[in-house]
Each structure stands twice: as C-alpha cells, then as structure tokens.
C-alpha cells in the first residue's frame, strides 16, 4: 500500500490549478510543474451542476 512518506523519496513534480505565481515560483527552484488553463465550467450554478453530474453519472 502507498504511504505518504513514499512521496519524500520521489522527485516532486507538480500540477498547478489557479494562481499562476505559484507555478512561477516552483519553476524558479527548478521543480517540474505544469499550469492548468482552468476556467469555470458553463454550469456554474449548483443546481445545474448537480443535474449535469447526475446525467453524466459522475455524482
């Protein structure tokens, strides 16, 4: 079974979702990192989102 401490033996590689500055600071210290070009989905209100998740079977 995987353990949290296994992470400490690996090279840190990160995915950043949100503030771009957090990606830039990791690049500065030479950590491999990729920025997700995230934006809110069209289904922004909770009701629509719940309905969509139900339809897609992801809820």
């Amino acid at each position, binding site marked *: 079974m995987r*353990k949290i*401490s*296994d*992470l400490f033996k690996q090279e840190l590689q*990160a*995915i*950043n979702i949100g*503030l771009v500055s*957090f990606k830039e600071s*990791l690049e500065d210290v030479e950590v491999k990192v990729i920025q997700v070009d995230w934006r809110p989905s069209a289904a922004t209100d909770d009701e629509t989102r719940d309905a969509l998740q139900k339809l897609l079977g992801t809820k």
Partner: protein
Amino acid sequence: MAVKGILKEGEYYDSVTLMLVARDVLAMEGVEDAAVVMGTEQNKSILETSGILLDMFKDAIDSDLLIAVKAKDEATCNAAIEKAKELLTSRRSKAQETGEYMPKSLEGAVDFLPDANMVIISLAGKYAGDEAMKALKKGLHVMLFSDNIPVEKEIELKKYGKEHGLLVMGPDCGTAIINGAPLCFANVVNRGDIGIVAASGTGLQEVSAVISNEGAGVSQAIGTGGRDVKKDVGGIMFIEGIKALEEDPETKYIALVSKPPHPEVLEKVAALIKIEIKKPVVAILLGGDPKVVEGAGAIPANTLEEAGLIAASFSKGKSMDEFKKLLEEREKELLNLAEKESKNKTAAQKFVRGLYTGGTLCDEAMLISRTIIGEVYGNAPLNPQFKLEDSWRSKENTFVDLGEDEFTVGRPHPMIDFALRNKKILEEAEDKEVAVILLDVVLGYGSNMNPGDELNPVIKQAKETAEKGGRNITFVCTITGTDKDPQGRGKVKQQLEDAGAIVVASNAAASKLASYIVKNLGGAK
C-alpha cells in the same frame, strides 16, 4: 463624478492577477474607485456596496470579466478601462509568448506530466473541493491553498487521503516545503533533518526560517490548514503528517506548530507521540496547554523562535543548557535595547501599535505582550473584551492583523500589497501617544518582492512626521525569512535599518522588545 464599465464574456483570470491590475488602475490620477473582478455573486455584492455595480453587470456569471471605474469624468474612466485591458492583455500574452502548453483540465495535465505527484489548487472555494477529490482519485497528493471549502468536504478529502496514503494539505494551507521545494507562500530554507507539521501558515514560516538562520535545515514541512486540529476534522492530517515524518529516514527531529488544538485532538496527538514516535519532538501550541504534550515526552516551546532554536540545537548536537544560555543572552540584549529606546520619548508616548500581516505572528505577539504589558486591543484580540470598536482606529496598546477580512475584501493580502499598512504606519506616527510601531515582514515566494524598497521611505516619513512634533518613534521589525529567499533577508534588514528601524532575530524578540519599552514608559495595564 462618472462611473463606467465593461463586461467581457468568458475571459478568465486568477484573482491575484486581477487585484494587481485593479491596484495599478486605482493609482491613476483622477480615479476614485476601480474593480477588475470575475462576475461571481460575492464580487457583485462588493461592487454594489461600493456603488459601482452597473446594470450590465447584474446578470453576469462567474466566467465573465467585469471592469468598473469611478473617476472624476468620463474621459478618465475610459482611459482607466483601456489601461486595465492593456495590463490584462500583457499578462495573458506573457504566457502565450513562452509558447508553453497549458492543458485545460487535470486529466490533460496528467497526460502531459505522467510522473506528477502533487496538485496545488488555488481556485475559488466552490470549485476547489471537487478538483481536489479528482486529484486524489488519480493518486496525487494535494495542497489546497483555497479556503471557503465546507468542513464536510474537508473531512471527506482527508479521510480519502488517509485511506490511500495521500497528503491533503489544507484547505486554507498557505505554505509547505516538500522535498526542498517551497510551495505557495514559503521560504527558501536549508535542507536538513528537521521535519515540521504545522496547522498554522506563518507559524510554519517563522519556525522553518529560524531553523535555517541558525544553520540547521528542514527535511519536510507539512501544512495541514488551521481547521485540521479542530474537533470536526479531528487532526486527521496533523496525525498522518507526524507518522510520515517518523517513517522518513531523512527526518531525525520533529517540530509541531499549531494554535491550540481541540483538547480531543491534542489527546490523540499526545497518545501518538507517546506510543509510536521514537524521534525527539518539540511542540509550540501558541496559547495551548503544554502539559499534555510534555506528558507524552515532547518538549514544549514557549514561542515559535524557541521551537526553531530547540530543533536546531538538537540537529547541531547542542545541549538544552547551551540553548538556554543563548536565550538568556538574547533576553539581556533586548532589555538593554529597551532601556536605551525608552530614554528619548515624551511624557505622553506610552503605547505600542503592532501592524501585522501574518495572522499567527500577530497572535504570538499578543500572547507574549500580554505577559509583559497586559492585554492589548486589536481586531482579533486574545480577550474579546479588548476588541476594537472600529478596526481602523487603534487605542492604547493595539495589535492589528491586517490579513483579517475587514481589511482584505477586494484587495491582495497585506503580505503582497503594502499600501494599506503603509497608510496605517503614517497615521499611527501622527498619534502623540505612540512610542513604538511594531512591524512584521514576511519574505519568501508569494510575498511582496521588494519589501525594503516599499517600507524604507514610509518609515523615514513616519519618523520625520513624529520628529516635527518633537517625538521619536521606535520602529521594531521582525523579518520572517532567510538569505536564500528571493528578497534576501540581509538586504531587507539593511534597508529597514537604513530607515532607522531596529530589526531583531524573531517575532518573539520583536514583541518582547516593543513590550519592554512600553513597560518602561508606564504604558502597561
């Protein structure tokens, strides 16, 4: 006065980018108020309160960009809107110029970086929880910078993380150091054999910086978010973090940092230390009862500085006696300095004004000052009876946390944007009763990149203002950071000292020095 605005559908920018653009627009001649925000319900209500919610914004949704400007005339409004558009375009094209690939989703990112093991999430709270769960289900560790995530969601994420051997740092986790990499708001510290688990962001920063400045180093620094140690979450990640450090061969000593945990959580942590943890543990539970951890065999520290110094002493093979001697020497120096600084004050100058950007640092300062000068006023005081009626107006001895909501709505955190504190410094300098102004400066990634350049002229101006009134104000500063930080602790220290400020080794030392001066002047309760 004119108010104008534009709405751009489907143009998404992160909140820091938007706030920095808004700040530049606000600085334009003739602009009274400006907002550059996404069209969320919360942002719309802020615009409404400020009287700049235009009709066209009322049906805006989260993915719409809103720019609103209130200025002396229409021409100024138009110029300001154009400026905001230019700044946003330059920000976007910077990313496009480098031609880097940016996947649209977490799935796309994993395809591109298949060995990724950490996902950092700083989206609005209502989206962040779902993205975090997606990441965990892909077997990825998570750092959740976002706040405003319901506690039920936090518990769900952390239970899943625990069951699957995954870290869930946060929500509201501002800082961590994993495998030597500073995440979000973190300092660049030496690598070493001290592991930290912290439920307090600036607390973690202060302890890790003290360790590094003493010549020791940090193996891992795990942030949990402040709510982890409350009753509902039950310390899930605090406990898993300690276990992970016990298993880590690079970690030889463990430091625990937290505001007082819920008693049930503290009992669980104590039982874990007693039964399963073989490595030496030092704990700072700001204002919490140290007896429980002491009973479990851990060493309680009185301040963040002490926690860092004890851990560093262990790491460097020094005895507790040597550590105590060092503390005594530092204490003597502070008392001498306080004596000297108390001599050049007028009869009316009695009080200290602490203007803090780091929440935990402000808490620690109040805890220390309380033992020397009694209770202090504040916007988030230790004793609710000392809550300021108006957070903007100080009274006697006052410590304000400028990172609290009443100061931060619609503007970047005061660790990034110094404008608000700079204004407060100049206001406090006008007050004839003020003897000491106490400031924290938090370095590291995420924070203001030129704190010395910004503070130097403000401190000089404040001192000049006081001197014109025949007063001398002592500025006491603490810098949380290291020489390896992008700002450079040594450089910032020099800039503050050039302005006439006294810079001491830690937040604990700064609050002691400020309090000793006040006590000498008769300003204690």
